[in-house]
Structure formats: C-alpha cells, structure tokens
C-alpha cells in the first residue's frame, strides 16, 4: 500500500475538523473513493480523533482545595526566582565595577609598559621545525582590552538573563 504524503495527511485532519472549503472537501472526497491508502488513513485518524474526544479528566486528591487554601499565606514559590534575579543583578554590578576600574587603569597607562614576547624557535624543539618561526609579541594593554570586551559581552548576557528577560516576562504576564 502506498504511503500518504504529509500534505495528504494535513488535508485529512482539516477534513475531520471541518475546516476545508467546499471545493477542497469535494476534491478530497473524490480522491478518497479512488485511494484505498488515503481512505484507510482517514479511518485511523477519525478513530483516534473520536478517542481523543474522551480524554479522561484526572481528579486530584480530595483535600486539594483545602491544601491550596492552607498554603496561600506561605512564601510563594514565584518569589524564589527573584532571589536568582537579585544574584544576577549583584553579579552584573560587580562585573561593571570591575570593568570600570580596569578601564580607568588602562586609560591611566598602567598597562602600557607591560609587554611580553614568545620566541617560537625557542619553545618548539628543532626536530619539529624546519624553518625559522616568528616571535609573537603580546601587549599588556591589548590583552586587558580584550578581557574588558569579553566582560562586556558577559555583562550583556547577565543583564539579559537577570534583568531584561524577567522584566519582559512580567510585562507579558501583566498584558494578559
């Protein structure tokens, strides 16, 4: 038996839901008279649909309502997440202070004299290197600038997770 295409199956679901237009419905009904596989699939989907309309409702324990009412004055669980937000805000503040101090030190020229270089010819054994390798220079100021840039990216991520996301989630909740 041939396999039905996803588009055919989509059409069948719309047919069951009664969301096809009259011409679409007629076209599908004509197709169903010729296509045994499609008709069989329709019957399967209709059976599943009928069963799903009888999903049993689960009942919680008998004292469910009393338990909820007795816990209403307890510390709501939702506030526990705000503690995490506060930790994020403190972390963000700490990062910004560190970035600020480092930027001041960089602009004061504290790292201007810090230079180092790595001579690759000395670091790698001769048997692995056929020709002369360049010496790599590291400027302390450049490295600190890179670290500041990375911290700014991290600070932005912390800002998003700890402040912006909870803020917009609260706004969305208020909208509904």
């Amino acid at each position, binding site marked *: 038996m041939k396999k039905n295409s996803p588009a055919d*199956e*989509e059409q069948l*679901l719309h047919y069951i839901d009664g969301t096809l237009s009259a011409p679409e419905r007629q076209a599908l009904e004509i197709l169903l008279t010729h296509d045994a596989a499609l008709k069989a*699939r329709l019957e*399967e*989907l209709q*059976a*599943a*649909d009928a*069963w*799903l*309309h*009888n*999903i*049993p*409702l*689960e*009942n*919680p*324990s008998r004292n*469910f*309502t009393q*338990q*909820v*009412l007795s*816990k*209403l004055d*307890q510390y*709501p*669980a*939702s506030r526990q997440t705000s503690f995490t937000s506060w930790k994020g805000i403190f972390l963000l503040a700490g990062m910004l202070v560190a970035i600020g101090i480092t930027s001041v030190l960089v602009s004061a020229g504290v790292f201007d004299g810090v230079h180092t270089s790595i001579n690759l010819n000395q670091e790698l054994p001769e048997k692995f290197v056929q020709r002369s390798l360049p010496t790599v220079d590291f400027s302390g100021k450049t490295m600190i600038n890179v670290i500041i840039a990375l911290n700014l990216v991290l600070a932005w991520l912390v800002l998003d997770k700890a402040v912006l996301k909870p803020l917009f989630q609260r706004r969305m*909740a*208020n*909208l*509904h």
Partner: protein
Amino acid sequence: MASSNPEHLIIDRILAGEAGAYAELVNKHKSYAFTLAMKILQNRGEAEEAAQDAFIKAYHHLNTFNRDAKFSTWLYRIVFNTAISYKRKHRQTFQSIEHTVLEYSPDAEGSLERMDKRKYLALAMAKLNEADRTALTLFYLNEFSLEEIADITGLEANTAKVRIHRARLRLADELKLILNQEALTL
C-alpha cells in the same frame, strides 16, 4: 463598569480580602489544572504539587490578571509553566508506562469497552513527548482554540497548529501499533 463575568466577581471578592472565595475558583479549575500537570509530569504526586503551586502563584498574581483575557487561559499558562519547571527539576524521576495507565480517576469506571479505550489511549499518549501530550490535552480536553493553546504554551499559533497536527498523526500511529500488537496476542 462592573463585570458580569462570574469569575471576575469572585476575583473582585478575593482582591477585596475574601481569600476563602478562592476555593470556588480552585474547585472549578482543579481537575483541568491537575490533568494538564499530569500530562506533563506523568506522576500524580508531582502533578498535585505542581497544580497546587500554580494555584498559589495565580492567587498571588490575581491583581495582574487582565480581564480581557479568559481566566482559564491565564491560569493554565501558569499551570503549564509550573509543571514544566517541575519537569526540569525532577528530570531524573522515572515512571513506567504501566504505572501511568493503571491510574484511573474514580469516575472513570464504566463499561469494559470504555475502560479499554482509556487504557489504550493512555498507552498511546505515554508514547508521545510531553509537548505533544500537552498540546493534545489542551486541544481535546478543554477545546481551547489554537490561539489560546499558543498563549498557554508560549508558542506561535502556527507552531501550535503544526504541533497539534503532528501529535494527532503520531497518536493515530501509536494507537494503530498498540491495537495491532493487542490483536496479535489474542
């Protein structure tokens, strides 16, 4: 202007300090809330805890409820999010399919045929992932619209539609498989 919606009147009483009135809302929605949590968590104890937690959260945020929306949609979104958080926290909790299908509510007693249908449906549902189970439950149990389901689950309406269609196809496949296996063992 005063609202004529009975649920809004109850909310007004609660916000005016009559906390006991919340029992009316809990009684009305507890079974749907619990069923939704069950479909996500597949564990009665956790589902009960999550549903209770969701009702407590809803109570503490009642003043933020927008009266233009349906209370049930707002509440079930909280239930959905709470159950998902529980799922993430207790990911290691294992529950067998057999345990799930044997849990019937007292009012589920009926004819043998009906019991069998529920058993097979529960088996097939247990084979789906939690997102598909939840989507199907919302679609069929409470007959929420696609927009409402999207609102509850935080999906786009189109994504919710695709998920429900896909879940219906998968469920039909699972049911077919289970019934074929059952027929072979007779």
